[in-house]
């Protein structure tokens, strides 16, 4: 499959702060690529470099196999970076008209974009009178004006209410289904897990892991069990074939087992040993625990 983005060894320092260290990324065409990391991990710096507004200290990248240039950005990419930036004295519709002019796109999509993002009724109000959520929606509307091959979204659900968050996520998945490539930066694991096909995890400007969401998530599951007698439970648990690891917490054991863990089989095993389980929950190991583990390690 053709690669939409190839970045090699990108580095950027702000004085003594290492914002990005030798970051290499490849984004396949048609994927929804999550850039995941805590605040200040270099996500925005990375996107700002890829979008041509910040100069990297070293490293190169290419979009759609071509050297980055403003005409590639204009024709193939739509992006929302960090905060929504618009002219406060212009109305929502006027701001979008300006974006359309810059993108050399027609103005026929403006109304649809405003309707999709629920701003149509306020289209003639000045941007400065918008709430944070509305500003964010306008920024998303701006990315819908053209029919770009690549959509770059930096924290797109920032400042939205739960309903707005759900709507935007739905919109992203829908756009992704049309075969567009989406690069989504987020500090919300849940968001990346729900929306993305691929993920790269960043911390302090370094790439910790990258790949398909399922791969990074790992293939083992967590099973929580509890019984009256925890010591006895632990003794039997240790003997489970294939056990990767276990942890004892206050009132329960957390087992790490290969995927897929069969709850019935586990229950039967302990029952045969004469232990009655009071609790049995199987969890696929979430990206969250993986993420915390990854970021803690370094």
């Amino acid at each position: 499959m053709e690669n939409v983005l190839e970045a090699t060894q990108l580095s950027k320092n702000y004085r003594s702060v290492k914002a990005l260290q030798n970051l290499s990324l490849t984004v396949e065409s048609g994927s929804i690529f999550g850039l995941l990391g805590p605040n200040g991990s270099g996500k925005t710096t990375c996107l700002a470099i890829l979008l041509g507004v910040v100069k990297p200290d070293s490293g190169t990248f290419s979009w759609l196999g071509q050297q980055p240039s403003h005409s590639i950005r204009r024709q193939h990419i739509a992006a929302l970076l960090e905060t929504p930036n618009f002219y406060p004295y212009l109305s929502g519709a006027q701001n979008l008209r300006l974006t359309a002019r810059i993108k050399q796109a027609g103005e026929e999509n403006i109304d649809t974009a405003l309707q999709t993002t629920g701003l149509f009724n306020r289209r003639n109000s000045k941007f400065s009178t918008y709430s944070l959520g509305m500003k964010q929606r306008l920024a998303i509307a701006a990315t819908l004006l053209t029919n770009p091959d690549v959509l770059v979204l930096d924290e797109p659900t920032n400042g939205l209410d739960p309903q707005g968050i759900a709507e935007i996520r739905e919109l992203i998945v829908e756009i992704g289904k049309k075969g567009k490539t989406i690069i989504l930066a987020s500090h919300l694991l849940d968001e990346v897990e729900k929306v993305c096909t691929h993920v790269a995890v960043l911390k302090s400007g370094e790439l910790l892991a990258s790949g398909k969401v399922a791969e990074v998530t790992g293939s083992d599951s967590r099973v929580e069990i509890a019984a009256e007698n925890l010591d006895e439970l632990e003794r039997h648990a240790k003997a489970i074939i294939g056990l990767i690891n276990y942890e004892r917490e206050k009132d329960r054991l957390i087992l790490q087992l290969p995927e897929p863990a069969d709850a019935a089989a586990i229950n039967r095993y302990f029952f045969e040993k004469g232990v009655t389980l009071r609790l049995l929950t199987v969890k696929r190991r979430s990206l969250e625990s993986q993420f915390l583990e990854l970021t803690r390690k370094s």
Partner: protein
Amino acid sequence: MRLLKIEATKLIPYRAFWVFFALHVIFLLLITASIGKLEQFAIPGETYFFSFPEVWFHLTLVASYLHLLPGILFIMLVCNEFTFRTFRQNVIDGLGRHEAVLAKFLAAAGYAFVFTLLLFLYGFIRALMGGHFSGFGNAFEKAHYLPLFYLQMCGSLSLAIFLAFLIKKSALSIIIFLSYSLIVERLLKWQLPDHVEQYLPVHVFNQLVAPPANPLEQMMELNEKVMPPEITVLLALGYIAVFILVSLLVVQRSDL
């Protein structure tokens, strides 16, 4: 043309733009109106303010004292783009950095053009209606002051825009622009030898439409040789080119 359209989309709904433009025009009207009144006391035989062909020199000379006003406007326009972070957004949306810079200089050239055109119409109408009209024979003899005035205004505005791109903060840029134009260059002139001082930018721009030296200045600057107008025009064009190029370089290299 595309860049001018983009700038127009930003400017036309901007109230501050119209306030500055209105002030610019109103000041011109007020000043020329009050000079027109003084005309009643003019000595017979002296040229009237609004009579052909002197009107072109008189008007452009008076108007040239008002350049600082649109200069401040354009500093605000450039710095706004940094404060609103819209330069960044424009570039993300696919405007080249060089286009973003050139658009501002083009907008300034457009503003200067419109103002010069208004000045021409105003002078033309006043001279026709002024009661001293005596045919079109030599009416446009001194009309070359209009393109000179246009160039002068472009020069002054490009200095303002250049400072704004360099400094990025509007208050500081305006202070530096005003104090350089009004004070600093004059101080420099006293320090520098004559053959150097005549090359300073504001001096060059002012020389395009220069007032006749008054007696005091004549005493102080007895030795000053006036540059031939062709050289002044070339120097002014050179300064404008330098301001544009350095602005391009600064924006090309910096993070937005």
